[in-house]
């Protein structure tokens, strides 16, 4: 049942023109990276990887937020749920299916953008280097980040309007990107209460900063396998939290 809903969510999302526009702009940005690289002698590869992965990340975040915040809200407002939930579909299956469908959409779009980046590297280096495999690791980390962000957007979508959900999701994303800095701030302050608070926030809020390996990938530093495994586990656990909470909220909700 989850697969049925997921596939339909993917099919519907793919027909939404905004996705094409975002992918197009990301590819444009990657092309621009090739031009910028040509005027930065000696570090073309670095620039392309940096700019390319940043473009994939930024546009991926935009897609995840735009699609995610309206995912459930739209179905409630437009009452498309009436015919769906009168079928033998449990509410938690609906949530899981919607989440998987959106993740599939993001994965396909990210793969398109990655193909553009690989092409750009191929063009600049007149071939691919073994170290270019690292780029795929960087993309994988971006995808993990997007899966986590989608879970959060979906959670907000279960109880908030798209505007509020967007603010909440982006707010958590920004805090998550700087969570390490927040904890360091607490350590410097030497106030035990502040230290506990910032430490608590570091661990409880989604730590998006831990997925940012763009710089390491650009400088061709290897990414430890332990980190890959750790981040996958982190995303699985955190997404499980978001989906269980979403299912609980949605299951308790009277539909208008």
């Amino acid at each position: 049942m989850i697969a049925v809903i997921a596939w339909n969510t993917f099919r519907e999302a793919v027909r939404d023109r905004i996705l094409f526009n975002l992918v197009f702009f990301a590819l444009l940005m990657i092309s621009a990276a090739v031009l910028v690289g040509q005027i930065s002698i000696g570090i073309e590869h670095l620039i392309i990887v940096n700019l390319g992965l940043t473009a994939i990340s930024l546009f991926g975040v935009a897609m995840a937020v735009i699609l995610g915040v309206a995912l459930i809200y739209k179905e409630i407002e437009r009452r498309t749920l009436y015919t769906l939930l009168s079928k033998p579909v449990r509410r938690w299956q609906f949530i899981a299916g919607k989440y998987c469908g959106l993740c599939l959409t993001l994965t396909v779009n990210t793969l398109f953008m990655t193909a553009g980046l690989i092409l750009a590297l191929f063009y600049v280096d007149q071939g691919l280097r073994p170290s270019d495999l690292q780029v795929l690791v960087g993309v994988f980390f971006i995808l993990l980040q997007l899966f986590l962000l989608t879970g959060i957007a979906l959670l907000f979508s279960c109880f908030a309007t798209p505007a509020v959900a967007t603010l909440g999701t982006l707010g958590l994303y920004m805090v998550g990107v700087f969570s390490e800095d927040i904890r360091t701030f607490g350590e410097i302050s030497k106030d035990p209460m502040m230290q506990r608070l910032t430490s608590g926030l570091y661990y409880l809020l989604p730590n998006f900063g831990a997925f940012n390996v763009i710089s390491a990938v650009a400088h061709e530093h290897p990414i430890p396998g332990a980190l890959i495994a750790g981040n996958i586990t982190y995303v699985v656990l955190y997404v499980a939290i978001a989906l269980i909470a979403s299912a609980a909220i949605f299951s308790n909700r009277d539909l208008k």
Partner: protein
Amino acid sequence: MAVILAEALTKDYLAGFWRQTPRRSLDSLNLEVQENEVFGFLGPNGAGKTTTLKLLMNLIFPTSGKATILGHPVSDTRMHREIGFLPEQPYFYDYLTAGEMLDYYARMFGYREDRAARVTRFLERVGLGESRDMQLRKFSKGMLQRFGLAQAIIHDPRVVFLDEPTSGLDPIGRREVRDLILELKKEGRTVFFSTHILPDAETLCDRVSVLAHGKLQGVGSVRDLFQSHVQGVEIVFEGGESPGFHRMQVGVNEVYDAFERLRKAGARIVSCSEVRPTLEEYFMKLVSKEGQS
């Protein structure tokens, strides 16, 4: 066994911004619907008909009371294999075609090899065979209503719930829906439909109930409520004391005396028919009684 059973089903909504006070939308509804019945659920706008249907479909949750369908609590999603639902003014995904959307619903019931054929059959049954590849956002209101019927019955449910199925349809569309409901009854299914179009209910229903201001005002078979109550006899005649056609209403026991008077006056009897109360009169009586109380 009652196919649909509601026991003291009540729903309160919280209204207001700062101090939320409960507003009762449905008050202790007790209802039983038997197998193979066509049951009409009548009421003016705002009576609580859609609330009742949403409670039965588990789209909203009761404040108190309970309901079962086919012996299962309404919260049991597995029972949804046996029921179909057409909401009022149904919405579907804009960018999918009729074929794709119906296929999506059919997948939810686990149909595999025969799914495509089933989708085609049901689209044709509701008169949408030619529109299979048209996106739903291009459908007219009537077409959407017919598509809604198709998705409600694609899995051959035992019980079908219809919320205002003929609303917004032209006379041809209404006739088609009425014919479909009669077909479903012939197939042995139970149909529960809400409407405020009384002639449809009078024609189709075995039993009706009237809901007003959240409370059940009356339930009974159409035959028992008024079809067996003859109020009088209406005689249409021509001529007599003045030229032209005239009508008069007399008591059942006064018919022959009336015929004799007319014969003596030289009038010609055109027709003679029983006068029975209409569903509309019954409905208005109940609704206005609740309004007064």
